[in-house]
C-alpha cells in the first residue's frame, strides 16, 4: 500500500487505500478502517486507487463489514477499481458489500 488516508465527507469517514493491499500493507488498512468504526463513524473505503488486493486485504474489508454490522453503522466500498472488483466478484463478495461508484452515490447519513 503506497498510501492510505482518512477524510470526513458527507458525514462519512472515508478511508482511501492506494496501491497493493497485501499481507504487509493490510494491517495498516485494517487499523484505519477499524479506527473509524470504533469512533462510531459510518465508513466508506475508497478502492479507486487499489492496483492489487489479496485475501488478507479482503479480510480487512470483511472485518470492517462485520464490525459495522455489529455496531449498526453504515459501511460501504466506493470507486472500486477493476483489479479490486475482479477479486470481489470472483469470490461473490460483491453480493456482500454495499458498493457505490463514489461518495455522491452513497445515501446520506
Amino acid at each position: 500500500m503506497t498510501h492510505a488516508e482518512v477524510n470526513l465527507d458527507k458525514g462519512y469517514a472515508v478511508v482511501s487505500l492506494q496501491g497493493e493491499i497485501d499481507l504487509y500493507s493490510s494491517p495498516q488498512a485494517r487499523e484505519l478502517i477499524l479506527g473509524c468504526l470504533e469512533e462510531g463513524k459510518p465508513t466508506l473505503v475508497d478502492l479507486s486507487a487499489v492496483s492489487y488486493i489479496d485475501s488478507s486485504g479482503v479480510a480487512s474489508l470483511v472485518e470492517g463489514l462485520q464490525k459495522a454490522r455489529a455496531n449498526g453503522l453504515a459501511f460501504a466500498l466506493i470507486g472500486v477499481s477493476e483489479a479490486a472488483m475482479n477479486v470481489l466478484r470472483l469470490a461473490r463478495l460483491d453480493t456482500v458489500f454495499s458498493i457505490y461508484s463514489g461518495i455522491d452515490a452513497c445515501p446520506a447519513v
Partner: protein
Amino acid sequence: MNSEPVTALQLERIRPSDLPAPPREALQVVQACSDPAIDNPQLAELIERLPKLSAELLRLSNSSFFALRSQVKSIAHAVSLLGHRNLRNLSLCLAMRDAVREDAIPGLDLAAFWEDALRRGVAARLLAAEVGLDGDEAFTVGLLQDFGLLIGFYLRPDRSHEWACLRPLDPDARLQAERTLFGMTHAQIGQELARQWALPDDLAEVIGLHHAPVMTDLEPHVQSLCRLAQSADWLAAVYTADDSRGVIRRCRELLLAGWGLDTAATDALLERINQVMAEAAQAMNLPIEHQTGLGEIMRAANLRLAEDNLSFQEMTLELERALDERNRFAVELERELTLAREVQCSLMPRREVPRGQVIGVNHSARRLSGDFYDYFPTRNEQVYFAIADVSGKGMNAALLMAKASSLFHCLGKVVLDPSVLLATLNREIAESTIRGMFVTMIIGIYDVHSGQGKLANAGHLPALQAGPDGALREFPAQAPPLGVLPEGRFPAVEFDLTAGELYLFTDGLIEAEVQGAPLELEGLAALIRRERHLELEQRLHRIMGAVIPASGSPRDDLTLLAVDLTTSE
C-alpha cells in the same frame, strides 16, 4: 587543562630571589650532618640552638612511624640513635615542609600537596623495607621527590588552579601535563632548586632524575633511590588517580619487574600505605584527610572494569546469549511447526476411492498451509470431495483450516447435500471467526456408479471440468466465502463425471508465475490440455512441476485436486 599559551619557565632565568627563601637554619644542620669534621656533641649543640627544629626532631624520633629502639629524651640521644645521615634527612624534610608558606601560592591546596608527598614517602619507606633498602632515606626521597612541582606553582601562582587537574592524573600523564603547564617537569624545577639551595648531591640527583628513563651513569645507590622514588610515585597514585585500575595494574608490573614482588605482595604493600599514613602524618605534623581504603578503591576499580568491559565483552556475551536463546526458540518452533505440519498433512487424505480416483497435491509456501483438500466415500456409494483456501497465511490460517476441514470431515458423514453442508459450515465459522478471516471452499459429491454429482462453490475460484473435445467448463462461485456473514445460501450445480474429470485448485496455482507472468485460468487450462494423455497422478505432478520454481518454495500455497471417474476403470 587550560590550553592558552603559557610562557615556559626557563631554568637559566630562575633567580634565587624568585625562589622561596631557603630554610637557612635547617640547611645549616643538613650541611653539618654531611661534614665528617663535625662530631655528635657538636651536631647536638647546633641543633639544640634551634628550638623549633629540636622539638620536631624529638617528636619524630619518638613517633611510632620512625620507631626507634628506645624512647628518645634528648637531641644528643637522637643524634646518636639516628646517625648523621638520618638526622640530615629528617632535618631536610622538616625544612622543606616549611619552606613554602601556606599563603605563598593562593589557590593551591598545600595540605593536599603535602598529603600526596607524604604518601609517596610512606610508599617509598615501605617498599624499601620490603626490598632491604634504608627506610628513612627512602622516606626522605619519597617525600621530597615532587617538591619541584610546588616550586613550579610558586613561580607561576597564576597556574595554581591547575593543581586540581594534575592531581588525579597518573605519574606519566602528570609529567606530560607539567611540560604543557610549565614548559618543564617538576624534576627539572626540583633539580634547579636543589642546586640553588645547595642540597646534598645525592638528594639533588634523585629529585632531578627520578623520572629519567635510563640512569646508567649514576651511582648504584642513587639509581636504586631513583627507582624507589618512581615506584613510590605510582604506588601513591593509586589513592589519587582517577584511573585507579590502570595505576594498580602498572604498580603490579613495576614492582614485579623492578623489585620481584608478586601481585599479592604489591597489594599488601598498597594496603599498608593506607594504614601507615596516619602515623606518618602525626610524625611529620602534617594534616591529612580521611583516607579511602584500598578495598573501596579496588571495588570501584572492579566496578569500572565491569563498565569498561560492558561495551565489548558483556555485549558480546549478551549477544551470544541472545543468539543461543533465539536458536533454542528456533529449534523449538521448528519442532512445533513440524508436528503441526504432520497433523495438517494427516488432515489431507490419501485413500482409495471406489470406482474412480481423487488425487490431491499440496505445496505450502510456508510450512503450514492455509489450503486444504479432502475426500472420502460416504455410506451410500457416494464420494465427497472438497477444496478450501483460508484467507491469509501461516499459523492462524492453518488453525482455521484445521477447523474447516474437521467440520467438513465430520459433518460430511451425515449431511449429504453440499449446499446444506456449506451453509452449516458457514454458520459455524462465522460464529467464531476473527479479524475478518474467511474460507473459500468448494464441496462436491458424486455417485461412484453413475458419475452424477453436484457441487457448491462458496467464494472459491471456479472448478474446471475437461470435456472430451478439450473444451473446459467452469463452475464459478455462486455464493460468498464462508465466515463473512452468518446467513446466506450456497446453491449447488450438477455435473457429470462421465463427461470428463474435474479440477479444483487454489489461487496460489493460477497466480504462480510461469515465465514471468501469472499462469491464470487460461494457462492452467492449456497445461491440462497438454498433459491430458498422462495418467491422472502423473498429470497432476507435471502441472505442479510447471508452476513450482525449481529452487525455493512457492510464493503462495499451491493446491490442486483432480476428481476422475474413468481412469481407474
